């Protein structure tokens, strides 16, 4: 396989979905095994990718390029750098785990797996796209499966089911319905998600089209655009074009991240979604936002990024605090985890805003770490919901008697989410905090507060679910006993702790992707941070020069370690 690893990762889920179309729902085991084996192929290939990725060489590796439309200048250009690689791995882990988490789905299982596979494949496609068109293509493609997964297999919130409407259910299809923000139905959540994401996605598309036009290169290829596109200093509407494009791209993609004022679709969507969908949604779908901002705004408009990224630094504080407080007061398990996710995504924005090697690497590692931690929490919230058919925390309690395995896993999930030492989240959090301190001390203090808040609401939820007096109504609930049920949790826990103890390769891979990017943006060479002097070591290529020259570092540097510009071979 080797160089075709990306194609296996991307097309195995698609092939699985295609194969499932021809399998009858009357053979549930066959349906599940086809879905699981498609996910397994993808997982194995991405594990191979992760370990075969050469951090010393850096840049875009495993590049595949196929012409797709000559007239529009589009090619299927795939490749991963140090930022895409861990996210591809996280997506395929969560897909694999998600298929086992939803093993017991009875209703239209085949359709469920088809849409889940397409959703995961589309997110994987974004992480490896080197073409703006395909980045948008896969991004938009991931939205519709979410609609169906939420609508068909999701659940209403408790409040909704108790709601009595004088007009019956007729209002649900009207315009008033979509504007009625008091509604809690799954249809509402699904529609809101699609409309929000589409509305902001078209803003990003406008930005992409402007890049396409004003670069004048007739191509959507990111690697070509970042080298040759000159979008600076074009005066437009009292400002410059690059700022307009940057704002369109940033807010277009930040909505899925979800950055604070654009977040409201996300917790509602989490709450309505079935467990596996929540896992993918919180685990990787949200990261599409950060990743696309890095890939489009950071790569193509580095100077503008340096100028405007403080916007993110301001908004991320609101994300962290607002999400944290709402999660603290929420009564619904999935709302708690959903708001906690949107709060934690604020850390990623903080790491991105500080724009240095440590903080941006921390942000990327945090995306990976958060995917595992939140995946676990959602899987377990889903398990509790399947057993008790309620997500209302006050009515639950004492479940640790009935489900010891789940409650132990839940403790681990909470620890990971808080960022206990020993989990990969700790490494990520500490890097973000250390890296951002010089530039944004206020935000770092807020982030610390956010960690305390995380501790508070997760422990509150843990106590509410698993400890205290038991509600006898749920005495029939049972633990995850079979291997199928335990496998997804064990995978995510072992990855989270494994990378927490042995983070070197992950760190090297991420640094190899982050270093050239930050060098481009700040034009400063990194302080040598690699353990034992190994790791990232390559040259800076200045645009316009053919020879590779070591860049003169800032005066503080005794030993300038060098970074690659990330040329894709």
């Amino acid at each position, binding site marked *: 396989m080797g160089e075709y690893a990306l194609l296996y990762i991307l097309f195995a889920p698609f092939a699985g979905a295609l194969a499932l179309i021809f399998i009858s729902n009357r053979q549930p085991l066959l349906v599940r095994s086809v879905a699981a084996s498609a996910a397994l192929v993808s997982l194995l290939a991405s594990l191979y990718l992760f370990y075969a990725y050469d951090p010393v060489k850096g840049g875009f590796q495993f590049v595949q390029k196929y*012409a*797709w*439309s*000559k*007239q*529009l200048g589009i090619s299927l250009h795939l490749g991963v750098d140090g930022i895409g690689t861990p996210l591809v791995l996280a997506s395929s882990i969560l897909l694999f785990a998600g298929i086992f988490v939803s093993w017991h789905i009875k209703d*239209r299982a085949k*359709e469920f797996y088809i849409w889940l596979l397409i959703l995961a494949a589309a997110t994987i496609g974004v992480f490896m796209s080197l073409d703006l*068109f395909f980045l*948008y*293509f*896969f991004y*938009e*493609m991931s*939205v*519709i499966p979410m*609609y*169906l997964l939420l*609508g*068909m297999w999701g659940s209403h919130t408790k409040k909704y089911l108790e709601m009595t409407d004088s007009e019956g259910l007729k209002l649900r*299809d009207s*315009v008033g319905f*979509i504007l009625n923000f008091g509604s809690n139905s*799954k*249809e509402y959540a*699904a*529609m809101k998600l*699609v*409309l929000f994401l*589409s*509305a902001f996605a*078209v*803003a990003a*598309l*406008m930005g992409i*089209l*402007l890049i*396409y*036009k004003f670069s004048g290169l007739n191509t959507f290829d990111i690697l070509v655009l970042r080298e040759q596109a000159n979008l600076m200093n074009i005066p*437009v*509407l009292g400002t410059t*074009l690059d700022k307009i494009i940057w704002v369109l791209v940033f807010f277009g993609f930040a909505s899925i991240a979800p950055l604070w004022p654009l977040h409201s679709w996300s917790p509602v969507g989490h709450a309505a979604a079935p467990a596996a969908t929540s896992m993918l949604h919180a685990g990787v779908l949200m990261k599409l936002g950060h990743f696309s901002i890095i890939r489009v705004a950071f790569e193509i408009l580095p100077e503008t990024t340096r100028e405007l990224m403080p916007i993110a630094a301001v908004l991320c504080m609101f994300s962290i605090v607002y999400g944290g407080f709402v999660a603290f007061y929420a009564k619904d398990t999935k709302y708690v985890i959903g708001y906690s996710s949107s709060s934690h995504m604020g850390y990623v924005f903080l790491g991105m805003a500080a724009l240095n090697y440590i903080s941006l690497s921390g942000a990327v590692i945090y995306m990976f770490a958060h995917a595992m931690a939140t995946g676990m929490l959602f899987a377990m919230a889903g398990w509790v919901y399947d057993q008790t058919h309620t997500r209302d925390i006050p009515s639950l309690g004492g479940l640790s008697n009935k489900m010891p395995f789940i409650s132990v896993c839940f403790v681990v999930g909470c620890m990971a989410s808080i960022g206990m030492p020993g989990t990969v989240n700790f490494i990520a959090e500490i890097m973000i905090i250390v890296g951002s301190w010089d530039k944004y001390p206020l935000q770092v203090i807020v982030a610390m507060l956010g960690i305390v808040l995380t501790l508070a609401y997760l422990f509150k939820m843990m106590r509410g679910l698993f400890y205290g007096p038991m509600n006898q109504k749920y005495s029939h609930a049972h633990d995850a006993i079979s291997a199928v049920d335990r496998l997804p949790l064990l995978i995510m826990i072992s990855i989270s702790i494994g990378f927490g103890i042995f983070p070197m390769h992950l760190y090297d891979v991420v640094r190899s992707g982050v270093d050239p990017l930050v060098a481009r943006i700040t034009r400063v060479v990194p302080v040598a941070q690699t353990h034992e002097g190994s790791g990232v070591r390559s040259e800076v290529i200045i645009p316009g020069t053919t020879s590779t020259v070591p860049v003169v570092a800032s005066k503080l540097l005794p030993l300038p370690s060098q970074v690659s510009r990330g040329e894709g071979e």
Partner: protein
Amino acid sequence: MTFSLNLSFSDLLLLLPEIFVTCWLCVVLIVDFSFSRVPKERLAYLSVAGLVVTLGCLAWFDMNHVSGTLFGNMFVLDRMAIFFKIVILGATILVILASIEYVNRFTLFRGEYYCLVVMSALGMMFMVSANDLLSVFVSIEFATLGFYVLVSYLRDDLASNEGGLKFFILGVLAAGLLAYGISLVYGETGKLVFSDMASAQPTPGLVIGFLLIFAALGFKVGAVPFHSWIPDTYHGAPTPVTTFLSIAPKAAAFAILLRIFLVALGTFKPLWVVLLVAVSILSMTYANIVAIAQRNIKRLLAYSGIAQVGNVLIGLAAGTKMGNDAILFYLLAYLFANIGAFAVVIAVSQAIGTDEISDYRGLSRRSPFLAFAMLLFLLSLAGVPPLAGFIGKLYIFVAAIKEGLYTLIVVGLVNIVISMYYYLIVVKQMYINEPINPSPIAISGPMKTVIYVGLAGTLVIGIYPQPFTDWVVSATLMFANFIGPSVTVAPPVHSLGG
């Protein structure tokens, strides 16, 4: 102006598809009247057979680059005409196949139905080849004549009669406008053939004349503010006729619009861009907002069709070779998605007898195939990757942004989001709501064929558009002569944000 008819055999070759369809039409009529015992669906297959042969002939033309003009430039067969003829014939074939089951319910005139459909198709084949204003007028009226009858085919149904009457009255009004416009243009320029008018000066009479012609053609494509007949006519007409009406006449009228705007009026581009931008914005925004409130699937698709026309007009407003390619590509994508969606509507209404959106409840349980097909068709119309509609929309936007039509693109993008809402409401009914009556829905063989063709087209064009873009690019090559930067007299009036 003397008119000498000296046709050689090679000239007749250019007319071969039309001649063949005319003869075949007579054959079908004769079989219908002479052998009254013949089951009427045999007539459908007979018509389809003739059209398939014609399609093959056109494909041969396309491959061998057969082209030329006839009758003193009145009739032109270029690659764009061939493209549109293939689209129209393809639509006709699919519509006939989708009608078979529906027509079997008619009590009277079942055979004539197929003849009228083929006759309209013949008229539209002339429309796309029309190269002067007279042949535009004659062919449009010829094509519409069949539709007047077809729309009011359900004689006992008041809605059908109302739709037919509305269509007729407004159609005649449009014909009047067209004739008046043609007379003004002829009076001002003394020319009828499009390519001769390229050097005309924009006198007020000429401008009014072309505005009237545009209004008449706007009626045919159903652009706001000439759309008022569409919802009632689409709603009342027999559903297969609605299908036909929603695709073929629009495609044919766009062929004429392309020729008029890019060949005859190429020099006035700065003037008509404003007009097209306004009409396009109105069409998209109005239709998408009104579509939200629809309760009937045919009316919903009618408004969605108006909005799609607004999208196509973006490409026309771009007024470049690339804009043309995008229009052709978009129409191809629209053809498959729209025929497919209407085919599902026909299949469902055969089974449950209504077209209300609320009766699509739980369709995915009653017929997973129909629901899945409808899902893909609606998403293609909404413009979701990886379906054909997305590539079509992107192609049009790329063509427009190269001309700097930013306002138009922003409106177009916002409208994608609005349209997503009402398409997804149908999806919600099909997939999320539970059926009241869970009995399965049976689908007839020909209907299945139509839906499969629609699905194949929607997916193949969406996933691998290269052959199709190549086709449309080569189909509009002749426009490269007419439009270029040198032709534009005035600098583009649209600056960023304007």
